[in-house]
């Protein structure tokens, strides 16, 4: 129906977007895989990070990529504190409570943003915003290409941390057996907060890569939450590789869906996949069925 | 007449054969027990009988009807009810309301169910606590509640999973006549029990499960003297050692 070159460009676009989606989902995978928390505030946290990157550019002219060393640690701290101070206290050990608390947090964050920044959609302009790169017959926006590479790099770092560091081992221990880990002397509350922090830090990185090619407004988080969850569920809860693959897949689905069905209706494909996965294959592509 | 017939059922989880080729028949009006060391598969067997799990092979016939793989609530409608090893009260409700849920199987009207619940509570000595929240009961109380709730469904066969677990000796003494009373009232009872005193006291027939397989059956005294059973509980070679030590003391 569409000729091959358009399809090719669409797929490439989808892959680049998908890589950023994957980065967003990676943080969520970590949080869910370890804490078994459905973090409804994930999208709103991304929005916070995006605004951070935006204002750094607008107020002090800091290029988003150069803002990484600021935004990532800041988001880490944000996530750490959020988990330690609010979410942990509210859980009382029940899933439902965490669900509600993170929902509440997302509402507060989104509407505070609405309050302070109004509902205007904002984007930034940099020297390279409009530059494109030729790959085969397709023209890909440079920021998107950078985002793609950046997402892969961050994912690799995350995987390395989980594999090779003491923290990574502690996290995996807590994920498997919380009480046993505590008995081994691991500070479980700290590990939980670290996970949340790292997950949020991933969002910080994602925001730096995302903003040049995208935009920000207070409601932007909503769109990302469901997409992120779709990816996490599709990839298999707790599987990083799954989140990566899932992210790329979803990016491509969205892109091709948009091609055939138009911008807004194309999004439906994602949610339909989400519902289908939840119903038919809840363990996702890489997860393990209990 | 056999109320429940279990025919060669097996169930595996991945590589683990939880129940392997088990067959047994529960006569109507009897009080029988299923014993065996931890992890033998007793609760799994209950789950298979009551419909919470589907057997991989085999057949289960209840009151002449094939109930293999039938959903638990449908089995309850037929008269097969089970309790749980770890008590599961409806924590946000009172004792009366808890039992009423069971009674509703037979009584559609709220008022009728509530009075039926009261009657069952009286039988099991729970009437003092009728309006207490179920979450406030002691372990013994919760066990009684679990029993009461199941009893309110007016079952033909009651599968009791370790109804005496967690009770102190006094409470066990108080529970024994209650269980015996069930059979006197016409309910067939099959117990999973670890408290040997109860098994000896109550059961007319005992099945022994070890590592998923039925290794012995008979009267309580037959079964406890069976060397295979001793081995299953106390380890390989124990039967011989016990025999030897007895000979030494007699010498």
């Amino acid at each position, binding site marked *: 129906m569409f000729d091959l070159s358009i399809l090719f460009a669409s797929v490439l676009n989808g892959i680049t977007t998908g890589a950023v989606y994957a980065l967003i989902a990676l943080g969520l995978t970590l949080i869910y895989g370890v804490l*078994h928390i*459905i973090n409804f505030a994930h999208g709103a946290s991304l929005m916070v990070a995006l605004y951070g990157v935006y204002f750094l550019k607008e107020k002090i002219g800091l290029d988003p990529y150069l803002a990484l060393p600021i935004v990532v640690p800041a988001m880490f701290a944000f996530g750490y504190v959020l988990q330690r101070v*609010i979410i942990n206290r*509210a859980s*009382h050990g*029940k*899933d*439902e409570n965490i669900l*509600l*608390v993170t*929902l*509440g*947090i997302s*509402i*507060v964050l*989104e*509407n*505070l*943003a*609405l*309050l302070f920044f109004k509902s205007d959609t904002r984007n930034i302009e940099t020297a390279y915003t409009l530059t494109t790169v030729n790959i085969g017959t397709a023209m890909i926006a440079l920021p998107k290409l950078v985002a793609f590479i950046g997402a892969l790099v961050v994912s690799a770092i995350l995987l390395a941390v989980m594999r090779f560091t003491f923290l990574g081992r502690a996290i995996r221990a807590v994920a498997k057996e919380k009480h046993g880990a505590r008995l081994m002397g691991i500070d479980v509350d700290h590990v939980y907060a670290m996970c949340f922090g790292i997950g949020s830090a991933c969002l910080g990185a994602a925001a730096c890569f995302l903003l040049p090619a995208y935009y920000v407004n207070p409601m932007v988080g909503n769109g990302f939450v*469901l997409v992120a969850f779709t990816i996490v569920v599709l990839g298999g809860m707790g599987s990083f590789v799954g989140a990566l693959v899932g992210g790329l897949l979803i990016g491509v689905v969205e892109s091709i869906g948009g091609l055939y069905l138009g911008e*807004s*209706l194309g*999004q*439906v494909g994602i*949610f*339909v996949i*989400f*519902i289908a996965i*939840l*119903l038919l294959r*809840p*363990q996702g592509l890489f997860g393990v*069925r*209990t | 007449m056999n109320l429940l017939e279990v025919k060669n059922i097996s169930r595996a989880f991945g590589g683990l054969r939880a129940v392997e080729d088990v067959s047994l028949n529960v006569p109507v009006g009897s009080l029988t027990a299923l014993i065996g060391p931890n992890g033998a598969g007793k609760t799994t067997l209950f789950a298979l009988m009551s419909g*919470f799990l*589907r057997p991989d092979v085999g057949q289960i016939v209840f009151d002449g009807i094939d109930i293999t*793989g039938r*959903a*638990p*609530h*449908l089995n*309850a*409608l037929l008269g097969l*009810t*089970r309790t*749980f090893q770890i008590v*599961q*009260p*409806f*924590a*946000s*409700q009172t004792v009366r*309301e808890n039992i*009423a*849920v069971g009674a509703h*199987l037979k009584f559609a009207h709220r008022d009728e169910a509530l009075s039926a619940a009261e009657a069952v509570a009286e039988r099991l000595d729970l009437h003092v606590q009728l309006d207490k*929240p179920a*979450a406030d009961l002691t372990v013994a109380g919760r066990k009684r509640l679990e029993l009461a709730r199941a009893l309110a469904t007016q079952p033909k066969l009651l599968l009791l999973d370790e109804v005496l677990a967690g009770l102190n000796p006094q409470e066990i003494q108080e529970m024994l006549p209650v269980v015996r009373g069930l059979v006197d009232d016409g309910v067939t009872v099959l117990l999973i029990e670890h408290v040997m005193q109860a098994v000896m006291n109550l059961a007319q027939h005992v099945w022994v499960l070890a590592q998923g397989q039925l290794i012995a059956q008979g009267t309580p005294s037959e079964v406890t003297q069976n060397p295979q059973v001793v081995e299953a509980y106390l380890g390989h070679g124990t039967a011989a050692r016990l025999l030897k030590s007895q000979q030494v003391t007699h010498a």
Partner: protein
Amino acid sequence: MKDFSSIAGFVLLVGCIPFFTDSGVVLNFVMMALYACLLAQAWNILGGFGGQFSFGHALFFGTGAYVQVMAQVHLGWNPWIALLSAMVMSAAVGFSVGALSFRYGLKGSYFALVTLAFAEVFRIVALSVTFTGAGVGLMLPLRESFTNMQFTSRAGYVWLVLGLVALALCTTAWLRHSRFGAYLQAVRDNEDAARAIGVNPFTVKLWATVISGALMGSGGAFYVQVFQYIDPSLAFGPHTSVEALVGAIVGGMGTLWGPVVGALTLHVLADVTRNLFGQLPGINMVVYGCVLVLIVMFMPRGIAGIRLHLFKQPVKTPSVGKERA
């Protein structure tokens, strides 16, 4: 019975308010407060009594709203008939979503996510399809008369929504004193124990979704009659979903009056905030969000709630697809 007499008292009391005052401000307040009560009560039936937390209840709201408008504008139906059809359609949507979700054993967070996903799907479809007016939405032409369910004074709307609230209250009271309600709460408290004593969790949860959906749909239909306009984000956006659930949770889930108390409290809070801070966009929701977080942290039972001792263990791995016998 105690419940029904208190409901009757409430209805009489509130119903008399329009006789004592002509003030548009007061009547508007009462009307919107009752509207919030209706939404919270609808959510409470599935969430509070059924223990299934829906994060996308706007799904039913939007369905009701759109059907109400479309039946009148596209089919020329009388609004009172349209109201019935709106409730029927919302119930049907509830049936479908419930059947799918519960057939596949969705619970807890997964159920919440799926309802959110469905709401989003409906929103996107409404946004893209012409007969729902696409992004522009649909308008209800102004024609005030009783038969047309449009009233010159707010009093008419107050009585209309009061009627719906009374319906919701009576439904809730019925839940508290019926076998279905006992079964529903049993499933909420412990699904396996309920199954063992003859309760079919699937049908029970399904019908709860249907009832909850129908009532929520009536809220949507009411909204459209009052504001005479609906668009995809008003209909299916998160705002309404949140309003419904926060009201029920704050007031106390699983009770008769909890949602009323909660919705009223939030409404008053929202009004007070508006008076203090002016018409700042989003300030209401900030308050709702904070209240939600605080209530969950310090008063999880809500203001009037029951003890929801959920004995469930936190999910270690997805327990979505349970063993099906």
